[in-house]
């Protein structure tokens, strides 16, 4: 079952490159893992879901590849289906067209190889302490023994500077601290890829900026692969090394571009990139406006 699609994606990965990526990037050599394929491969994924009255197409034939060690950011206005797309990578939703493969294996259900960090603060289980929350997935998935799980959990709690709060319950923590626990929990599992669904969106601006810095320094330490969804262009430029732009209603790939080098998020180059992204995302409105006034 998994052998077929994996083989297919391997043999056609060269040609798909040309179709999906924006013209500017055509022909660019894409570095891959030892087996010659990207870590996460999203191919022509169309997502649809039903509400009470409508059948909504959230994304239409979206394709992109995430490589080992990428900080891959999906950015787009609300309604571009970016969260739906992330839930599909998480295995919670099934695409009606196209396929998503992780290390060549087709994704069919949720699993601990793709740890999810949600936007909501209630993602921590309130009946477990901070430490127990981090240990819980390590134990239930049978990854580690009790002692190893404890050591691993403490190690990652120290990384997010929460070792002192390890015996507190989640309701005693601030929003930013809860998100740090969720990140520690995700990273402690050492998943193939960490999925983050606007994890800082519900935080105040100061905490948010500090959390972004912390996430980057965590990445410097462990070089984990992360797929990050946001609606904030500055956040995408600051956090990502590669940015995927989606247009709204339904979500389609507008571009897939490189971000500015690390630490340059306040430079003129970053500002220019921000304007470029903004113009691309809102190009339709700009084009429509003169026409409307001319008639």
């Amino acid at each position, binding site marked *: 079952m998994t052998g077929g699609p994996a083989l297919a994606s391997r043999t056609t990965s060269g040609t798909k490159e040309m179709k999906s990526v924006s013209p500017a990037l055509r022909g660019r050599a894409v570095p891959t893992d030892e087996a010659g394929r990207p870590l996460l491969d999203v191919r022509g994924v169309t997502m649809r879901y039903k509400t009470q009255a409508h059948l909504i197409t959230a994304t239409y034939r979206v394709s992109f590849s995430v490589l080992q060690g990428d900080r891959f950011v999906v950015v787009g206005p609300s309604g571009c289906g970016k969260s739906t797309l992330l839930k599909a990578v998480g295995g919670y939703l099934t695409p009606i067209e196209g396929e998503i493969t992780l290390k060549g294996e087709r994704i069919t259900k*949720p699993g601990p190889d793709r740890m999810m960090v*949600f936007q909501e603060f*209630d993602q921590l*289980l*309130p*009946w477990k302490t901070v430490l127990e929350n981090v240990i819980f997935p390590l134990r*239930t*998935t049978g990854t580690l023994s009790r002692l190893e799980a404890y050591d691993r959990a403490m190690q990652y709690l120290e990384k997010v500077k929460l070792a002192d709060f390890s015996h507190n319950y989640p*309701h005693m923590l601030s929003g930013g601290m809860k998100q740090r626990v969720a990140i520690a929990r995700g990273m402690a599992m050492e998943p193939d890829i960490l999925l983050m669904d606007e994890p800082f969106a519900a935080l105040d601006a100061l905490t948010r900026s500090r959390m972004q810095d912390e996430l980057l320094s965590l990445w410097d330490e462990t070089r984990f692969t992360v797929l990050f969804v946001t609606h904030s262009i500055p956040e995408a430029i600051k956090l990502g090394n590669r940015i995927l732009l989606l247009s709204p209603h339904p979500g389609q790939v507008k571009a897939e571009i490189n971000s500015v080098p690390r630490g340059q998020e306040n430079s003129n180059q970053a500002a220019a990139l921000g304007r470029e992204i903004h113009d691309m995302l809102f190009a339709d409105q700009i084009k429509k406006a003169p026409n409307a006034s001319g008639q």
Partner: protein
Amino acid sequence: MPQASERPNIYCETLGPDQFGIIEKPLTLAEQIYNKVWLRKVAILIVLALAWEIYGRWLDNPLLVPPFSAAVRALITDVGSGTIPRRALSSLEVLLVGFAMGTVLAGLLTVLAISSRIGTDFLETMTAMFNPLPAIALLPLALIWFGLGAGSLIFVLVHSVMWAVSLNMLAGFRGVSATARMVGRNYNLGGLRFVAKILIPAAFPSILAGLKIGWAFAWRTLIAAELVFGVSSGQGGLGWYIFENKNQLDIPEVFAGLLTIILIGLAVENGVFRLIEARTVQRWGMQT
């Protein structure tokens, strides 16, 4: 008129903590005493007992309302002679068996209800039919099916506990946030492990509320059933004790029986359920 650009930057010095008069001050003794929940509740009980005592003496008719002191005297005498403890124990035995069976059955039904749509329909239909049906109304049938004894009592107890508890459990399971569910699935939890490790703790406030309601229903049903037919294998419970004494017009003893039920209720509420709440939902911040 000054322009916006003309306004200077302003910098202020802040005071150190030692320059303030009061930052932290303990409350007065009276305030501290008033802050104790149990003390306030005891005060309420004392006022009620006093009102009863005064009314009883003013009425001066122990056949209608004996004063509080007479009821307490009767209570102390019968507790001392071992009558009330024996009766209470025999009631509690039946009660615990019925309550436990009802809760377990409710748990099974609810798990069935959340794992399949037909299960949900089944539970909803059953609770809609049987929850409004008073357990006492089933007693005549139960007596025919299970005979004069603990069997019939347990049957009506299970009936009175099960539907109330399963309704609350189902509401609790349905209220578990989508994020918590997704977190559980992220860890590859499924089936009964998912229910035990995610759904039950997350729905615990509702489950606990259901257990409290079930406990109260069980008490009511048991005492009422004992009043109707009372003796099981020669040893009646508290309901039978009340019935007997009423027949002999020992009204203080009737009140002593009622007081015993109240005291056991208070002990279970403030002892068992309060303790569980403090250890679980309050500690987890799911209830304030």
